[in-house]
Protein backbone atom coordinates (compact mmCIF):
# COMPACT_ATOMS: atom_id res chain seq x y z
CA UNK A 1 0.00 0.00 0.00
CA UNK A 2 2.77 2.30 1.05
CA UNK A 3 4.65 1.29 -2.08
CA UNK A 4 1.74 2.29 -4.29
CA UNK A 5 1.29 5.63 -2.55
CA UNK A 6 4.98 6.41 -3.02
CA UNK A 7 4.75 5.58 -6.72
CA UNK A 8 1.69 7.78 -7.14
CA UNK A 9 3.43 10.64 -5.34
CA UNK A 10 6.36 10.42 -7.75
CA UNK A 11 4.00 10.20 -10.73
CA UNK A 12 2.00 13.23 -9.53
CA UNK A 13 5.21 15.20 -9.01
CA UNK A 14 6.40 14.40 -12.52
CA UNK A 15 3.08 15.26 -14.11
CA UNK A 16 2.90 18.53 -12.17
CA UNK A 17 6.39 19.48 -13.30
CA UNK A 18 5.45 18.60 -16.87
CA UNK A 19 2.20 20.58 -16.74
CA UNK A 20 4.12 23.65 -15.62
CA UNK A 21 6.93 23.49 -18.15
CA UNK A 22 5.21 21.45 -20.91
CA UNK A 23 8.65 20.82 -22.40
CA UNK A 24 8.43 17.07 -23.12
CA UNK A 25 4.83 16.92 -24.32
CA UNK A 26 5.23 20.00 -26.54
CA UNK A 27 8.40 18.71 -28.14
CA UNK A 28 6.91 15.26 -28.63
CA UNK A 29 3.61 16.48 -30.09
CA UNK A 30 5.16 18.89 -32.53
CA UNK A 31 7.66 16.24 -33.59
CA UNK A 32 4.81 13.78 -34.16
CA UNK A 33 3.00 16.34 -36.33
CA UNK A 34 6.16 16.96 -38.35
CA UNK A 35 6.58 13.24 -39.04
CA UNK A 36 2.90 12.89 -40.00
CA UNK A 37 3.39 15.77 -42.43
CA UNK A 38 6.58 14.27 -43.89
CA UNK A 39 4.86 10.94 -44.46
CA UNK A 40 2.38 12.68 -46.76
CA UNK A 41 5.26 13.54 -49.09
CA UNK A 42 6.83 10.10 -49.06
CA UNK A 43 3.82 8.25 -50.47
CA UNK A 44 0.35 8.92 -51.77
CA UNK A 45 -1.74 5.84 -51.05
CA UNK A 46 -5.40 5.07 -51.64
CA UNK A 47 -7.70 4.75 -48.64
CA UNK A 48 -7.41 0.94 -48.45
CA UNK A 49 -3.65 1.03 -48.75
CA UNK A 50 -3.55 3.69 -46.06
CA UNK A 51 -5.52 1.50 -43.68
CA UNK A 52 -3.06 -1.34 -44.25
CA UNK A 53 -0.15 1.02 -43.64
CA UNK A 54 -1.73 2.80 -40.67
CA UNK A 55 -0.29 0.58 -37.92
CA UNK A 56 3.27 0.87 -39.14
CA UNK A 57 3.01 4.60 -39.80
CA UNK A 58 1.42 5.45 -36.47
CA UNK A 59 3.78 3.34 -34.39
CA UNK A 60 6.84 4.77 -36.07
CA UNK A 61 5.48 8.21 -35.21
CA UNK A 62 4.81 7.10 -31.61
CA UNK A 63 8.23 5.48 -31.25
CA UNK A 64 10.10 8.55 -32.54
CA UNK A 65 8.04 11.14 -30.73
CA UNK A 66 7.83 8.99 -27.60
CA UNK A 67 11.61 8.83 -27.30
CA UNK A 68 11.55 12.59 -26.63
CA UNK A 69 9.22 12.09 -23.66
CA UNK A 70 11.17 9.11 -22.33
CA UNK A 71 14.45 10.99 -22.63
CA UNK A 72 13.13 13.62 -20.24
CA UNK A 73 11.87 11.09 -17.65
CA UNK A 74 15.10 11.00 -15.70
CA UNK A 75 16.96 13.83 -17.46
CA UNK A 76 14.63 16.38 -15.87
CA UNK A 77 16.07 15.39 -12.48
CA UNK A 78 19.64 16.32 -13.38
CA UNK A 79 19.51 20.09 -12.70
CA UNK A 80 19.99 20.88 -8.96
CA UNK A 81 21.05 17.24 -8.36
CA UNK A 82 17.43 16.17 -7.93
CA UNK A 83 18.29 12.65 -9.04
CA UNK A 84 20.69 12.15 -6.12
CA UNK A 85 18.02 13.39 -3.74
CA UNK A 86 15.43 11.03 -5.24
CA UNK A 87 17.78 8.05 -4.99
CA UNK A 88 18.62 8.99 -1.40
CA UNK A 89 14.92 9.41 -0.50
CA UNK A 90 13.52 6.69 1.78
CA UNK A 91 11.56 4.91 -0.95
CA UNK A 92 12.32 1.73 -2.85
CA UNK A 93 13.96 2.11 -6.25
CA UNK A 94 11.09 0.11 -7.71
CA UNK A 95 8.57 2.65 -6.38
CA UNK A 96 10.55 5.49 -7.93
CA UNK A 97 10.68 3.59 -11.20
CA UNK A 98 6.98 2.76 -11.18
CA UNK A 99 6.03 6.37 -10.43
CA UNK A 100 8.19 7.69 -13.25
CA UNK A 101 6.87 5.02 -15.60
CA UNK A 102 3.26 5.94 -14.76
CA UNK A 103 3.89 9.62 -15.48
CA UNK A 104 5.61 8.83 -18.79
CA UNK A 105 2.84 6.42 -19.69
CA UNK A 106 0.20 9.12 -19.26
CA UNK A 107 2.21 11.62 -21.33
CA UNK A 108 2.80 9.08 -24.10
CA UNK A 109 -0.85 8.09 -24.09
CA UNK A 110 -1.98 11.71 -24.41
CA UNK A 111 0.42 12.25 -27.30
CA UNK A 112 -0.91 9.12 -29.05
CA UNK A 113 -4.54 10.11 -28.45
CA UNK A 114 -3.90 13.46 -30.12
CA UNK A 115 -2.16 11.79 -33.06
CA UNK A 116 -5.07 9.48 -33.92
CA UNK A 117 -7.65 12.12 -34.94
CA UNK A 118 -4.95 14.19 -36.67
CA UNK A 119 -3.96 11.11 -38.63
CA UNK A 120 -7.62 10.40 -39.42
CA UNK A 121 -8.19 13.91 -40.75
CA UNK A 122 -4.92 14.24 -42.71
CA UNK A 123 -5.29 10.88 -44.42
CA UNK A 124 -9.11 10.71 -44.68
CA UNK A 125 -9.50 7.64 -42.53
CA UNK A 126 -12.28 6.71 -40.14
CA UNK A 127 -10.44 4.90 -37.37
CA UNK A 128 -13.14 4.63 -34.68
CA UNK A 129 -14.95 1.47 -35.88
CA UNK A 130 -13.12 -0.66 -33.29
CA UNK A 131 -12.54 2.10 -30.77
CA UNK A 132 -12.33 0.19 -27.48
CA UNK A 133 -10.21 -2.73 -28.70
CA UNK A 134 -7.93 -0.12 -30.26
CA UNK A 135 -7.64 1.66 -26.91
CA UNK A 136 -6.76 -1.65 -25.26
CA UNK A 137 -3.98 -2.26 -27.78
CA UNK A 138 -2.78 1.30 -27.30
CA UNK A 139 -2.63 0.88 -23.51
CA UNK A 140 -0.81 -2.46 -23.64
CA UNK A 141 1.74 -1.49 -26.28
CA UNK A 142 2.36 1.92 -24.72
CA UNK A 143 3.00 0.28 -21.37
CA UNK A 144 5.59 -2.04 -22.95
CA UNK A 145 7.24 0.96 -24.62
CA UNK A 146 7.13 2.89 -21.33
CA UNK A 147 8.71 0.14 -19.24
CA UNK A 148 11.64 -0.34 -21.61
CA UNK A 149 11.98 3.39 -22.22
CA UNK A 150 11.91 4.35 -18.53
CA UNK A 151 14.48 1.71 -17.63
CA UNK A 152 16.80 2.94 -20.32
CA UNK A 153 16.11 6.56 -19.48
CA UNK A 154 17.49 5.77 -16.01
CA UNK A 155 20.35 3.82 -17.54
CA UNK A 156 21.46 6.55 -19.93
CA UNK A 157 20.75 9.57 -17.73
CA UNK A 158 24.36 10.34 -16.83
CA UNK A 159 25.77 9.51 -20.22
CA UNK A 160 27.22 11.73 -22.84
CA UNK A 161 25.24 11.35 -26.09
CA UNK A 162 22.18 10.50 -23.96
CA UNK A 163 19.70 11.62 -26.63
CA UNK A 164 21.27 9.28 -29.17
CA UNK A 165 21.90 6.31 -26.89
CA UNK A 166 18.31 5.98 -25.69
CA UNK A 167 16.65 5.24 -29.05
CA UNK A 168 19.64 3.16 -30.13
CA UNK A 169 19.19 0.84 -27.15
CA UNK A 170 15.40 0.94 -26.90
CA UNK A 171 14.24 0.33 -30.48
CA UNK A 172 15.91 -3.07 -31.02
CA UNK A 173 14.62 -4.27 -27.64
CA UNK A 174 11.14 -3.07 -28.53
CA UNK A 175 10.83 -5.04 -31.76
CA UNK A 176 8.35 -7.66 -30.43
CA UNK A 177 6.18 -4.99 -28.81
CA UNK A 178 6.28 -2.82 -31.94
CA UNK A 179 5.45 -5.70 -34.31
CA UNK A 180 2.45 -6.68 -32.19
CA UNK A 181 1.26 -3.07 -31.93
CA UNK A 182 1.64 -2.50 -35.68
CA UNK A 183 -0.24 -5.67 -36.63
CA UNK A 184 -3.07 -5.09 -34.17
CA UNK A 185 -3.42 -1.39 -34.94
CA UNK A 186 -3.61 -2.01 -38.70
CA UNK A 187 -6.26 -4.66 -38.12
CA UNK A 188 -8.40 -2.46 -35.88
CA UNK A 189 -8.07 0.75 -37.90
CA UNK A 190 -9.25 -1.26 -40.91
CA UNK A 191 -12.38 -1.97 -38.89
CA UNK A 192 -11.83 -5.71 -38.51
CA UNK A 193 -12.42 -7.32 -35.12
CA UNK A 194 -9.76 -9.10 -33.05
CA UNK A 195 -10.08 -12.59 -34.57
CA UNK A 196 -8.13 -15.61 -33.27
CA UNK A 197 -5.45 -15.07 -35.92
CA UNK A 198 -4.32 -11.77 -34.42
CA UNK A 199 -5.04 -12.72 -30.80
CA UNK A 200 -1.61 -14.35 -30.75
CA UNK A 201 -0.19 -10.82 -30.98
CA UNK A 202 -2.35 -9.73 -28.07
CA UNK A 203 -0.89 -12.55 -25.99
CA UNK A 204 2.60 -11.56 -27.09
CA UNK A 205 1.97 -8.00 -25.90
CA UNK A 206 0.73 -9.19 -22.51
CA UNK A 207 3.68 -11.59 -22.15
CA UNK A 208 6.16 -8.89 -23.17
CA UNK A 209 4.71 -6.50 -20.59
CA UNK A 210 4.80 -9.05 -17.78
CA UNK A 211 8.38 -10.16 -18.52
CA UNK A 212 9.88 -6.71 -18.87
CA UNK A 213 7.89 -5.04 -16.10
CA UNK A 214 9.10 -7.63 -13.61
CA UNK A 215 12.66 -7.56 -14.98
CA UNK A 216 12.72 -3.76 -14.73
CA UNK A 217 11.36 -3.73 -11.17
CA UNK A 218 14.00 -6.24 -10.08
CA UNK A 219 16.94 -4.57 -11.82
CA UNK A 220 16.12 -0.88 -11.40
CA UNK A 221 17.86 -0.68 -8.02
CA UNK A 222 21.16 -1.70 -9.66
CA UNK A 223 20.60 0.84 -12.42
CA UNK A 224 19.93 3.73 -10.03
CA UNK A 225 22.76 2.92 -7.63
CA UNK A 226 25.19 1.54 -10.28
Amino acid at each position, binding site marked *: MNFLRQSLTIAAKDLRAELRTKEAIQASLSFALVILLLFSFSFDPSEDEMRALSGGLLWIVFAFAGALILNRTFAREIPNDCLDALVAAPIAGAALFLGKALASFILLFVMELVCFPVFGIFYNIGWTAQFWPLMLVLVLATWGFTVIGTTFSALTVNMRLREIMLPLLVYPLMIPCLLAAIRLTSQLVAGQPLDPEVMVWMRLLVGFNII*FTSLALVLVESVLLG
Partner: protein
Amino acid sequence: MREKIIYGMALLAAILLARNLHSTFLVLPDEANQGMIYRIMFFHIPAAWTALLGCAVALVASVMFLITKNFRYDALAVAVTEVGLAFLAVNIVTGSIWGRIIWGIWWTWDARLTSAFACWLLYFGYLMLRGAIDEPTRRATLAAVFSIFAFADVPIVIFSIKWWRTQHPQPVFWGGGSMDSAMWLTTMLNWVALMLVGAVFLLVRLRQEEAQREIDSMRRMVHAI
Protein backbone atom coordinates in the same frame (compact mmCIF):
# COMPACT_ATOMS: atom_id res chain seq x y z
CA MET B 1 51.07 -21.27 -18.40
CA ARG B 2 48.17 -19.26 -19.73
CA GLU B 3 50.20 -18.34 -22.75
CA LYS B 4 50.75 -22.04 -23.48
CA ILE B 5 47.05 -22.84 -23.13
CA ILE B 6 46.21 -20.15 -25.68
CA TYR B 7 48.82 -21.38 -28.15
CA GLY B 8 47.79 -25.01 -27.60
CA MET B 9 44.14 -24.26 -28.26
CA ALA B 10 45.00 -22.20 -31.32
CA LEU B 11 47.08 -25.07 -32.67
CA LEU B 12 44.29 -27.54 -32.03
CA ALA B 13 41.82 -25.23 -33.79
CA ALA B 14 44.13 -24.91 -36.80
CA ILE B 15 44.52 -28.69 -37.13
CA LEU B 16 40.79 -29.27 -36.78
CA LEU B 17 39.98 -26.52 -39.30
CA ALA B 18 42.43 -28.01 -41.78
CA ARG B 19 40.81 -31.42 -41.37
CA ASN B 20 37.33 -29.93 -41.82
CA LEU B 21 38.29 -27.87 -44.86
CA HIS B 22 39.81 -30.97 -46.44
CA SER B 23 36.65 -32.95 -45.76
CA THR B 24 34.40 -30.08 -46.87
CA PHE B 25 36.06 -29.44 -50.22
CA LEU B 26 37.70 -32.73 -51.19
CA VAL B 27 35.76 -35.56 -49.56
CA LEU B 28 32.10 -34.62 -49.29
CA PRO B 29 30.13 -34.57 -52.58
CA ASP B 30 27.97 -31.70 -53.85
CA GLU B 31 24.52 -31.56 -52.32
CA ALA B 32 21.74 -32.91 -54.57
CA ASN B 33 19.66 -29.71 -54.81
CA GLN B 34 22.02 -26.91 -53.88
CA GLY B 35 25.23 -28.08 -55.55
CA MET B 36 28.51 -26.51 -54.50
CA ILE B 37 27.27 -23.67 -52.33
CA TYR B 38 25.82 -25.82 -49.53
CA ARG B 39 29.39 -26.11 -48.17
CA ILE B 40 29.05 -22.66 -46.65
CA MET B 41 26.64 -24.25 -44.18
CA PHE B 42 29.59 -25.90 -42.41
CA PHE B 43 30.52 -22.42 -41.23
CA HIS B 44 27.10 -20.78 -41.25
CA ILE B 45 25.43 -23.14 -38.78
CA PRO B 46 28.27 -23.58 -36.25
CA ALA B 47 28.85 -19.81 -36.24
CA ALA B 48 25.22 -19.30 -35.20
CA TRP B 49 25.51 -21.88 -32.42
CA THR B 50 28.76 -20.33 -31.17
CA ALA B 51 27.17 -16.86 -31.15
CA LEU B 52 24.14 -18.16 -29.26
CA LEU B 53 26.37 -19.81 -26.70
CA GLY B 54 28.25 -16.52 -26.40
CA CYS B 55 24.98 -14.72 -25.52
CA ALA B 56 24.25 -17.32 -22.85
CA VAL B 57 27.70 -17.01 -21.31
CA ALA B 58 27.35 -13.21 -21.38
CA LEU B 59 24.06 -13.55 -19.48
CA VAL B 60 25.59 -15.78 -16.80
CA ALA B 61 28.63 -13.50 -16.47
CA SER B 62 26.37 -10.42 -16.20
CA VAL B 63 24.19 -11.97 -13.49
CA MET B 64 27.30 -13.10 -11.63
CA PHE B 65 28.72 -9.58 -11.82
CA LEU B 66 25.57 -8.04 -10.35
CA ILE B 67 25.67 -10.56 -7.51
CA THR B 68 29.40 -10.57 -6.70
CA LYS B 69 30.61 -7.22 -8.12
CA ASN B 70 33.74 -9.09 -9.19
CA PHE B 71 35.26 -7.40 -12.24
CA ARG B 72 36.45 -10.70 -13.67
CA TYR B 73 32.83 -11.39 -14.62
CA ASP B 74 32.53 -8.00 -16.26
CA ALA B 75 35.64 -8.70 -18.34
CA LEU B 76 34.22 -12.09 -19.30
CA ALA B 77 30.88 -10.54 -20.27
CA VAL B 78 32.37 -7.93 -22.58
CA ALA B 79 34.90 -10.35 -24.10
CA VAL B 80 32.32 -13.04 -24.82
CA THR B 81 29.85 -10.50 -26.23
CA GLU B 82 32.45 -9.17 -28.65
CA VAL B 83 33.42 -12.67 -29.78
CA GLY B 84 29.75 -13.71 -30.09
CA LEU B 85 29.00 -10.61 -32.13
CA ALA B 86 31.85 -11.48 -34.51
CA PHE B 87 30.47 -15.00 -34.98
CA LEU B 88 26.96 -13.69 -35.50
CA ALA B 89 28.38 -11.41 -38.20
CA VAL B 90 30.00 -14.47 -39.82
CA ASN B 91 26.63 -16.19 -39.66
CA ILE B 92 24.80 -13.28 -41.30
CA VAL B 93 27.42 -12.72 -44.01
CA THR B 94 27.71 -16.42 -44.96
CA GLY B 95 23.90 -16.64 -44.98
CA SER B 96 23.74 -13.66 -47.28
CA ILE B 97 26.25 -15.23 -49.70
CA TRP B 98 24.24 -18.46 -49.66
CA GLY B 99 21.05 -16.49 -50.35
CA ARG B 100 22.67 -14.75 -53.34
CA ILE B 101 23.32 -18.14 -54.98
CA ILE B 102 20.16 -20.02 -53.99
CA TRP B 103 17.53 -17.27 -53.83
CA GLY B 104 19.28 -14.88 -56.27
CA ILE B 105 19.23 -12.03 -53.75
CA TRP B 106 21.64 -10.86 -51.08
CA TRP B 107 19.01 -10.07 -48.54
CA THR B 108 15.36 -10.66 -47.89
CA TRP B 109 13.35 -9.66 -44.81
CA ASP B 110 12.54 -13.23 -43.93
CA ALA B 111 12.13 -14.34 -40.33
CA ARG B 112 15.55 -15.75 -39.56
CA LEU B 113 17.57 -13.11 -41.38
CA THR B 114 15.61 -10.36 -39.73
CA SER B 115 15.94 -11.82 -36.26
CA ALA B 116 19.67 -12.48 -36.66
CA PHE B 117 20.10 -8.87 -37.73
CA ALA B 118 17.93 -7.64 -34.84
CA CYS B 119 19.96 -9.67 -32.34
CA TRP B 120 23.17 -8.32 -33.80
CA LEU B 121 21.91 -4.75 -33.36
CA LEU B 122 20.79 -5.56 -29.82
CA TYR B 123 24.23 -6.74 -28.76
CA PHE B 124 25.94 -4.01 -30.73
CA GLY B 125 23.98 -1.65 -28.47
CA TYR B 126 25.69 -3.35 -25.54
CA LEU B 127 29.10 -2.34 -26.88
CA MET B 128 27.88 1.18 -27.70
CA LEU B 129 26.59 1.48 -24.15
CA ARG B 130 29.95 0.46 -22.71
CA GLY B 131 31.69 2.96 -24.93
CA ALA B 132 29.56 5.79 -23.57
CA ILE B 133 30.37 5.29 -19.86
CA ASP B 134 33.78 6.10 -18.40
CA GLU B 135 33.45 5.11 -14.76
CA PRO B 136 34.31 1.36 -14.54
CA THR B 137 31.85 0.28 -11.81
CA ARG B 138 28.97 2.14 -13.37
CA ARG B 139 29.87 0.84 -16.83
CA ALA B 140 30.02 -2.76 -15.62
CA THR B 141 26.71 -2.55 -13.71
CA LEU B 142 24.70 -0.86 -16.45
CA ALA B 143 26.15 -3.12 -19.12
CA ALA B 144 25.22 -6.17 -17.04
CA VAL B 145 21.64 -4.93 -16.70
CA PHE B 146 21.46 -4.33 -20.43
CA SER B 147 22.84 -7.78 -21.17
CA ILE B 148 20.11 -9.38 -19.05
CA PHE B 149 17.44 -7.36 -20.85
CA ALA B 150 18.90 -8.29 -24.23
CA PHE B 151 19.02 -11.99 -23.43
CA ALA B 152 15.41 -11.99 -22.22
CA ASP B 153 14.45 -10.25 -25.45
CA VAL B 154 16.22 -12.58 -27.90
CA PRO B 155 13.68 -15.46 -27.82
CA ILE B 156 10.73 -13.04 -28.00
CA VAL B 157 12.31 -11.21 -30.93
CA ILE B 158 12.90 -14.47 -32.75
CA PHE B 159 9.36 -15.74 -32.21
CA SER B 160 7.67 -12.45 -33.02
CA ILE B 161 9.58 -12.06 -36.27
CA LYS B 162 8.82 -15.68 -37.12
CA TRP B 163 5.11 -14.97 -36.76
CA TRP B 164 5.55 -11.82 -38.81
CA ARG B 165 6.75 -13.74 -41.87
CA THR B 166 8.42 -17.02 -42.76
CA GLN B 167 10.42 -17.84 -45.88
CA HIS B 168 13.57 -19.55 -44.55
CA PRO B 169 14.41 -23.21 -45.37
CA GLN B 170 13.43 -25.43 -42.46
CA PRO B 171 16.20 -25.28 -39.88
CA VAL B 172 18.05 -28.46 -38.99
CA PHE B 173 17.07 -27.98 -35.36
CA TRP B 174 13.39 -27.96 -34.34
CA GLY B 175 12.31 -28.21 -37.98
CA GLY B 176 11.70 -30.71 -40.71
CA GLY B 177 15.18 -30.60 -42.30
CA SER B 178 17.59 -33.52 -42.23
CA MET B 179 21.29 -34.02 -42.92
CA ASP B 180 23.49 -36.89 -44.04
CA SER B 181 25.57 -38.33 -41.21
CA ALA B 182 28.93 -37.51 -42.87
CA MET B 183 27.85 -33.89 -43.34
CA TRP B 184 26.53 -33.90 -39.80
CA LEU B 185 29.93 -35.03 -38.50
CA THR B 186 31.76 -32.26 -40.35
CA THR B 187 29.25 -29.69 -39.08
CA MET B 188 29.79 -30.84 -35.51
CA LEU B 189 33.58 -30.96 -35.84
CA ASN B 190 33.56 -27.52 -37.38
CA TRP B 191 31.52 -26.32 -34.45
CA VAL B 192 34.24 -27.61 -32.14
CA ALA B 193 36.85 -25.86 -34.29
CA LEU B 194 34.95 -22.54 -34.27
CA MET B 195 34.42 -22.83 -30.52
CA LEU B 196 38.16 -23.28 -30.08
CA VAL B 197 38.84 -20.23 -32.24
CA GLY B 198 36.25 -18.33 -30.18
CA ALA B 199 37.86 -19.48 -26.93
CA VAL B 200 41.27 -18.28 -28.11
CA PHE B 201 39.83 -14.87 -29.02
CA LEU B 202 38.11 -14.81 -25.65
CA LEU B 203 41.28 -15.56 -23.67
CA VAL B 204 43.28 -12.94 -25.56
CA ARG B 205 40.52 -10.39 -25.06
CA LEU B 206 40.24 -11.25 -21.35
CA ARG B 207 43.94 -10.59 -20.92
CA GLN B 208 43.54 -7.21 -22.61
CA GLU B 209 40.71 -6.31 -20.23
CA GLU B 210 42.78 -7.29 -17.22
CA ALA B 211 45.77 -5.28 -18.46
CA GLN B 212 43.46 -2.32 -19.08
CA ARG B 213 42.16 -2.48 -15.53
CA GLU B 214 45.65 -2.69 -14.14
CA ILE B 215 46.70 0.37 -16.13
CA ASP B 216 43.61 2.23 -14.92
CA SER B 217 44.33 1.46 -11.28
CA MET B 218 47.99 2.49 -11.66
CA ARG B 219 46.88 5.74 -13.25
CA ARG B 220 44.51 6.39 -10.35
CA MET B 221 47.33 5.69 -7.90
CA VAL B 222 49.63 8.15 -9.67
CA HIS B 223 46.90 10.79 -9.55
CA ALA B 224 46.38 10.11 -5.86
CA ILE B 225 50.06 10.61 -5.15
